[in-house]
């Protein structure tokens, strides 16, 4: 092996890690809820902005077609 190539042990993404199954399971129980709250909040703000513009600006400007 050439000396300038890193060994597998030097790469943090390869080889065994020290995360046990119980910790992984615990994290997987809470992460989806956090993601849902974050994405839900973002979408709620977007929908709120759309509704405000649609109801308070677009509709009062009158019919068009």
């Amino acid at each position: 092996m050439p000396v300038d190539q890193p060994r597998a042990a030097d790469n943090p993404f390869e080889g065994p890690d020290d995360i046990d199954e119980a910790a992984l399971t615990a994290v997987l129980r809470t992460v989806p809820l956090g993601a849902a709250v974050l994405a839900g909040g973002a979408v709620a703000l977007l929908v709120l902005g759309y509704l405000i513009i649609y109801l308070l600006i677009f509709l009062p400007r009158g019919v068009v077609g």
Partner: protein
Amino acid sequence: MSDRSHETPERWVLHTELLWAFGVGVLVAATISMIVFTALTRNINPPSNVERVDPKTLHLSGEFAEQNLGTVVAADGTITARIIATQFMFVPHCIAVPQGRLLTLRFASPDVIHGILITGTNVNTMVVPGYVAQVHTEFTRTGELLMPCHEYCGLGHSEMWANVQVLPAAEFKPDRNGRVTCAQH
């Protein structure tokens, strides 16, 4: 929150994703329902007229000849305003329209693509040579509104604008030919 300790993490993730997909589905359905509801009950639609007109003979004869431009009230009471958008002006430069009555705006271009909007309203359309751009609308407030060209049409684009004079119904009086012109201030 219900106790999900008996579920595997994969099932819990799947459950969250399905819930999210359901929420997104509800939002999309609600948005489309609002658009369809206002289209059916308040007649709010994208202007979608497709009607050909020869741009080479626009000003010589027919609907967009000079004597037919501006606002006219037909015998049956329908109101139509015909405007030519050309480099770099609108003809006529001012159109008079009534408040609170449905009317039709018809635009044509003899040269390049123009676009119009009327400030403070939902009127907004492209004016493409060879086609008649048509918008049905009703003005809710009286006053002078600006109608600029909003599609870059050449060096004089920024000077291309017209006025829309929205008159109270009592002041909107057609002459014996059914024509209405802007009041001079």
